[in-house]
């Protein structure tokens, strides 16, 4: 099987869609000549030209909003919001327009729009370039929400997002762009709403997203050395959520840790915990532990930054805490 970086995997899905389908186009700030702030769209301008690979002004409301309008007219736009912190500027269009047109029109309209964005700590970007905001969108009926953690997932899920007839917010994590992973020869669409079990185990289930999937896998290796068998599940699609796979896993292990990079308070882990404690109440042998960032705007200095966001050792500690319970 070939290997791709996460960055290449995203690019691969974009390129294939652009190649095969005239209704697809991409737009965003600096995605053309420069290939995007994270070099994801490099080369696409040369292949597809400036009509379908469009640099935009710094206008996050209009980027998302014009994507909505084009989508309603039968296009499949993929827009890029350079940093997910700037989703704060397009919330109105995303939440009040994209997510609601279909219901408000009584089903006359659908909005097959994909919004790609990226974020996360690492490299000391400071408080305004590092947030993880996926939890907000899980609270918005009408949207779908994806957070890919591996090259294969990124490629297959992005494809499904593009061809889903609903507006989908697609989160990438900055520090994953360079990771490599095996991918199938041909792009394999991965259905939205299916979790992935990365690693089977019998003592604890860790439900992790984004960068924390990798940290959790590392923690699982460590725990193994202590004889703790850890199952790692990545929901991949946060909305709709594959409750079944997650709950079954917890019923098997009887213990659960949730892990994401976003701040813990009000994060996606809260939703997971609420679902799991409800569905697996009689199976749980310990409270669900949540791992997430400290509750603070991300400080710049690397020491504070790295302290604030969770790593493998934080997941490991949580695993140990839950196992230590009676």
């Amino acid at each position, binding site marked *: 099987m070939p290997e791709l970086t996460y960055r290449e995997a995203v690019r691969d899905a974009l390129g294939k869609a652009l190649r095969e389908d005239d209704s697809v186009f991409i737009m965003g700030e600096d995605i053309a000549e420069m290939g995007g702030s994270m070099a994801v769209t490099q080369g696409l301008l040369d292949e597809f030209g400036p009509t379908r690979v469009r640099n935009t002004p710094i206008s996050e409301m209009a980027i998302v*909003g014009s994507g909505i*309008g084009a989508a309603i007219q039968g296009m499949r736009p993929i827009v890029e919001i350079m940093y997910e912190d700037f989703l704060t500027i397009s919330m109105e269009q995303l939440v009040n327009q994209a997510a609601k047109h279909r*219901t*408000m*029109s*009584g089903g*006359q309209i659908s909005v097959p729009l994909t919004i790609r964005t990226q974020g996360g700590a690492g490299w000391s970007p400071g408080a305004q370039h590092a947030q993880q905001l996926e939890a907000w969108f899980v609270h918005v009926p009408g949207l779908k929400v994806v957070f890919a953690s591996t090259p294969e997932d990124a490629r297959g899920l992005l494809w499904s997002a593009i061809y889903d007839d609903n507006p989908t917010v697609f989160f990438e994590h900055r520090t994953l762009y360079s990771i490599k992973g095996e991918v199938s020869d041909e792009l394999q669409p991965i259905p939205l709403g299916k979790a992935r079990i990365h690693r089977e185990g019998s003592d604890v289930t860790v439900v992790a997203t984004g960068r924390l999937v990798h940290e959790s896998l590392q923690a699982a290796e460590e725990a193994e050395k202590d004889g703790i068998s850890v199952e790692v599940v990545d929901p991949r699609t946060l909305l709709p959520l594959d409750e079944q796979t997650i709950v079954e896993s917890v019923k098997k292990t009887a213990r659960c840790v949730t892990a994401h990079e976003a701040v813990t308070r009000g994060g996606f882990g809260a939703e997971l915990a609420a679902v799991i404690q409800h569905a697996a109440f009689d199976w749980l042998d310990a409270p669900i532990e949540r791992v997430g960032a400290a509750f603070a705007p991300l400080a710049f200095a690397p020491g504070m930054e790295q302290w604030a966001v969770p790593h493998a050792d934080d997941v490991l500690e949580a695993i140990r805490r839950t196992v230590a319970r009676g």
Partner: protein
Amino acid sequence: MATVEERAESGGRGVSEAMLRGFFREMLLIRRFEEKVEDRFRAGELPGFLHVAIGQEATATGVCAALAREDVIASTHRAHGHAIAKGTPVERIMAELYGKVEGCSKGYGGSMHLYDVEVGNLGANAVVGGGLPGIVGAALAFKMRGEKRVAVAFFGDGATNTGTFHESMNLAQLWTVPAIFVLENNGWAESTPASQQLPLPVEELGKRAAAYGMKLIEADGQDVEAVYLATLAAREHALAGKGPVLLHLRTHRLTGHFVGDPQVYRDKDELKEERETKDPIRLLGARLEIGEDEFSTIDGELTAEVEAAVEFAKAGTDPKPEDALKYVYA
């Protein structure tokens, strides 16, 4: 309504008396419809937040008459006139206001979310400025596919103060898409007069086009013929690939902001005078010399039509409560 083709035949850019009479009829229909809405609201029959456009009928009728069916519009919270003028039958609008399955949004939208995609109404919007960027995207799609269609956004003077307005105008001009931005400038944003919300004198709001190098066309919004001709010109400009147009129409809101608004903030004499001198239907009636008898006949027909719409709406079907979940995802 006449199609673009019929209109073209009726003498190029000229407006025949027959067409003006058609406009008169439609404007009066809008007026009677909205008066009925006020009436049914007072009777406690209509849920939701309602905004009528009494005094602004000429902008809805004049603009939409100049559009082809395949042109699309985005409307505002003050939406009934736009919806009627773009071609949705009044009974389907009334049914929507009553929250019925027969409504143009199947009872999901209400007055602030009238949709009718078949006739090119992409929806009214309850967020001021919310519909503008979508229109840029629709116009972009038309341009990319080489379709000869325009996308039209209605909005008020208050909306020109939103960031969305700025970003949408800017992007539309940058990409020279076939969009028309129809500014219905009534000098009020709810209770806030122009002087408290616009740094420019209200009559000079068209200057905002220059910030983007956008084509500006202005017309008296109380004169339906002027609005119609201005829109034709705007459409021609946009379809010729010359880029979008800001169509600035000065108009007058002859009622409260919302149905039930006591307008404590408004000078009563001024309003009275405006009602007497600025009513676009009266003005057109005078010009067409529509006499009392003729008026009575037309009015009777339209009143009956609106009455029938109410009956249709009341006899409509209530959605099943649990159908609230029906259209969330495609």
